[in-house]
């Protein structure tokens, strides 16, 4: 009884566990500690952004520019590092670069929010335009060639281990906790839900709806920049071709986690499950050596299937 209740209320958790158990037996090397740490590290970057995206989508908006945003911020960081490193040394140079990238993407998020506020421009289209602009900008910064200005030690950030756990995982957990706190225990977080649920009702209740949306967009910009720096650290360079197409992966993870695209409904806990789900699928299929083409079919099918299950069970609970 209790179990079926749990199942109905948390279908994604169950699906994830079932898939996990299946892979333990079916995918060689899946169950090793090393591989699990790997999965964690691999989902870190998209996961961080997905946490931010959850806030955006709950608030009733969307951000399609994050793929280019990641590449852009890696390139900015690498570029500033290259310019400064001889003068200031690598540590300061990289810090400056990363902070600049965060500031720029925060600013772009805020600008997107302002365009929404003052001109009612859908974030869908603004960020779609930005996807192209930022990709072009990243290429212009690098002139198409990866900028390799980082010292080898920088690799630690994205690929190093601390107490046996990949370093980025700590960032991942910290940001998850932060967003969890924001969404559940702050007036900003509550406002996200209200604003996404009914903009006008929220406005008439004295909530600063635009500040709320804009902040969500800006914060996600910062998260995107962090992911970009981590990627740059992993590949030890700023590359304009990184992270192409991530927007769709990240949004998928958020939706799989039960967040409603129409706004007003969703949890970052769900997003965590969604991120793990996608991460485990990719890892499992690679380990099982599923052919490239079938991977596409299986992955798309599983996304549809998972969301379908989510909705089908949700209906049952309600009825």
């Amino acid at each position, binding site marked *: 009884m209790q179990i079926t209740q749990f199942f109905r209320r948390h279908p994604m958790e169950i699906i994830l566990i079932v898939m996990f158990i299946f892979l333990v037996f079916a995918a060689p*090397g899946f169950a090793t500690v*090393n591989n699990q740490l790997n999965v964690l590290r691999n989902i870190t970057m998209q996961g961080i952004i997905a946490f931010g995206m959850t806030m955006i989508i709950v608030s009733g908006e969307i951000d399609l520019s994050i793929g280019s945003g990641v590449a852009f911020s890696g390139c900015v960081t690498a570029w500033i590092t290259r310019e400064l490193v001889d003068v200031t040394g690598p540590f300061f140079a990289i810090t400056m670069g990363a902070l600049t990238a965060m500031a720029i993407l925060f600013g772009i998020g805020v600008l997107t929010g302002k365009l929404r506020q003052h001109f009612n421009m859908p974030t869908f289209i603004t960020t779609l335009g930005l996807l192209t602009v930022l990709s072009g900008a990243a290429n212009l910064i690098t*002139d*198409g060639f990866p900028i390799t200005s980082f010292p080898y030690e920088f690799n630690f950030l994205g690929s190093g281990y601390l107490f046996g756990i990949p370093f980025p995982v700590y960032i991942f957990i910290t940001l998850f906790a932060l967003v969890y706190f924001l969404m559940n225990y702050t007036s900003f977080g509550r406002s996200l839900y209200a604003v996404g649920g009914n903009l006008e009702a929220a406005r008439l209740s004295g909530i600063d709806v635009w500040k709320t949306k804009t902040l969500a967009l800006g914060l996600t910009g910062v998260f995107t920049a962090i992911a970009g720096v981590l990627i740059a650290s*992993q590949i030890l*360079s700023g590359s304009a*071709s*990184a992270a192409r197409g991530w927007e769709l992966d990240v949004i998928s993870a958020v939706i799989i986690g039960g967040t409603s695209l129409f706004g007003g409904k969703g949890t970052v806990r769900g997003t965590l499950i969604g991120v793990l789900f996608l991460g485990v699928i990719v890892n499992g299929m*690679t*380990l099982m050596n599923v052919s490239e083409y079938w991977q596409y079919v299986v992955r798309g099918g599983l996304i549809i299937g998972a969301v379908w299950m989510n909705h089908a069970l949700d209906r049952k609970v309600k009825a």
Partner: protein
Amino acid sequence: FATTALAAELTIASIVFQQDQFFRTIQMGMNSAADEAGVTLLEGNSESKPEKEISLIDTYIARGVDAIVISPVSKVASIPALKRASDAGILIVTYNSTIDDASIPVSYLNSAQRDLGNSTGQLAAEFIKNELGGKAIVATLGFKALLPEISGDRVNGFLEEAEKGGTLEVVSQQDAWLAEKAIQVAGDIITANPNINIIYAANEGGTVGAVQAVRNAGKAGEIFVFGIDGTEQLVGFILDGDNVLQAITAQQPYVMGQMAVQAAIAAAKGETVEKTVIVPVLGISRNDQSAAQDFLEYLKSL
């Protein structure tokens, strides 16, 4: 330890960076070599994205493969992950493209990207000298936004050799690597520069698109296309009577795939392998129809 391993116990991971027939043919070559030796071959695609490549490599490290046969996405961005793999005792073989740190791969097999451009360039130089009176107005189609380094090598390699046939005036350099996009871009270029007489496309999709665009514009016999890659369709264009596609340079992906896996197996068995292997490229020109015919037969036999 690897030196005493039996081939049958080996697991080799292979990574391509794109989903196209060039890499598909490489994979077929790899498969045939793996089957022959009885090793397990895993296949992955990094989709030209450095972070996807890292994730694949890490997954293969976790799975504990014996060797990774890879066409790295970037000379530099691919180093850290491959170094990690190498440090974990995994043998790295690079093909098609490689990394700047030569200490990591045990072997590197390639048709140098620049050679590809050079080869078509040489055929073009001849054509310019003989047919165009030493003067050519040229447009190029690359894939800079996708893979800037390789695109640069192929385009510049072409121009460097083609110049030897006379004076070149390069009027347009654009990106278009998918056929349908290349039709549009090449069509636009022809409109902007009606006096253009040579279009060079640096990959298969671009070449198909350029040929179709010239046909659309009704400029067969006035504009001549030079391309890269030897596919059935492109060889067919060479054999076609409409005199549009003049020359292509085929890599030998099947052979390259075979040799890459063989090198990995050999290295895993502790045999010495060549540090660098150049897989020859094959220029195919309209002037040598029988060679083109032979090549088509070869393709069909794969």
